[in-house]
C-alpha cells in the first residue's frame, strides 16, 4: 500500500495530543526524524513531535521556514481551513464539538424528538404488521 500523506514542508496537520489538542498547523520545517517546526496564523512557530501530529490530506505550497504572511497567504489561496472543515474529518470534529457543547435542555429536546419519531415509526410498523396478518 503506497503512502498518500507525507511529512513535507507545507503539509497541514492536526495536533492530536497534549495541551494544543485539536489545533491545525502547517509543517514549515523538519528538524529531525522525530520533530517538525510547525506554524499557523495566530499561533507561535514552535517545535512539535510527529507523535503528536495527525497528517491531513492538505498541503500548501510554501518555502522552507516560510514567513508568517507568506504562510497566511498560501493558506488563504488554497482555502485549506474551509476545505478541511468541509471534509469528512472536519465535519466529524465539528459534530463532536457540537455534542460536547450540548446542555441538558438540548439533550432533553433531543430525547423528546427521538421518542416522537420512534412513536411514529412504531405506529406505522404495527399498522403494517396488522394488515399483513
Amino acid at each position, binding site marked *: *500500500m503506497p*503512502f*498518500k*500523506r*507525507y*511529512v*513535507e*514542508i507545507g503539509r497541514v496537520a492536526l495536533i*492530536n*495530543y497534549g495541551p494544543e*489538542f485539536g489545533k491545525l498547523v502547517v509543517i514549515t*520545517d*523538519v*528538524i*529531525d*526524524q522525530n520533530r517538525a*517546526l510547525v506554524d499557523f496564523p495566530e499561533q*507561535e*512557530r*514552535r*517545535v512539535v513531535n*510527529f*507523535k503528536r501530529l495527525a*497528517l491531513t490530506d492538505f498541503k500548501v505550497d510554501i*518555502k*522552507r*521556514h516560510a514567513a508568517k504572511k507568506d504562510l497566511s497567504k498560501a493558506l488563504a489561496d488554497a482555502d485549506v481551513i474551509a476545505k478541511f472543515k468541509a471534509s469528512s474529518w472536519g465535519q466529524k470534529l465539528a459534530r463532536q464539538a457540537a455534542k460536547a457543547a450540548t446542555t441538558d435542555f438540548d439533550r432533553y429536546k433531543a430525547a423528546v424528538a427521538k421518542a416522537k419519531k420512534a412513536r411514529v415509526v412504531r405506529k406505522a410498523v404495527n399498522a403494517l404488521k396488522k394488515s399483513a396478518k
Partner: protein
Amino acid sequence: MVMQGAFKFHQYQVVGRHLPTATDANPTVYRMKVWAEDDTKAKSKFWYFLRKLRRVKKANGQIVSCNEIFERKPTLAKNYGVWVRYGSRTGVHNMYKEYRDVTLNGAVGQMYQEMASRHRVRPSSIQIIKTATVDYHSCKRANTKQFHNEKIQFPITHRLCRPSAPEFRTLYKANRPNVAMY
C-alpha cells in the same frame, strides 16, 4: 516569547579573575562559556576549568558576572557540532557529534542523553570542548545531512494509537490497535 523547552543544561557566560593584589592591581579577566544545570554549578565549573588553565582558584579569585545565554533564533532548525572529551571505563577520548536542533541547549541536552545511552557516560565525566553552529556544507554525519533537503518528504509509517489525554486511558480495550495509516 517562544517556549524554549525545559532544558536540563543551560548555557552560562561566566566571567572571573584573580583577586587584585599589591603586585597586580588589575588582573586579567577571563570569560568562559559553560553548560550547567544552574548558575551555581556554572560558577563551580568555571573555577574547575580556570584552575586547569591559569594559576587561580576560587579562594583567590572572584566572579565578575555570570549570565545565562539564550538562543538567538529558537525557531530556526540548525545543525550543531559538539566537540566532547569524556572518560570511559578504560580511558579518555575525544568525540565530535552533530545534532539537528532548534536551540544549542537542546543540542547539548541531546548530546548528554546520547553519551549516556550509547556509551554509558555520565554527565560528570563529560567535558564540552567546543560547540558550534555548523553550516550545511560542513556537516559530516549522514544522519544530519539527510535533513538538508528543501523538498524533504517522508511518510509516517506507523500510526500512534493513543487517547488524546492521559485521563482517557483505559486498562482494557475492545479491539487490538490498528497501526495502519490509511
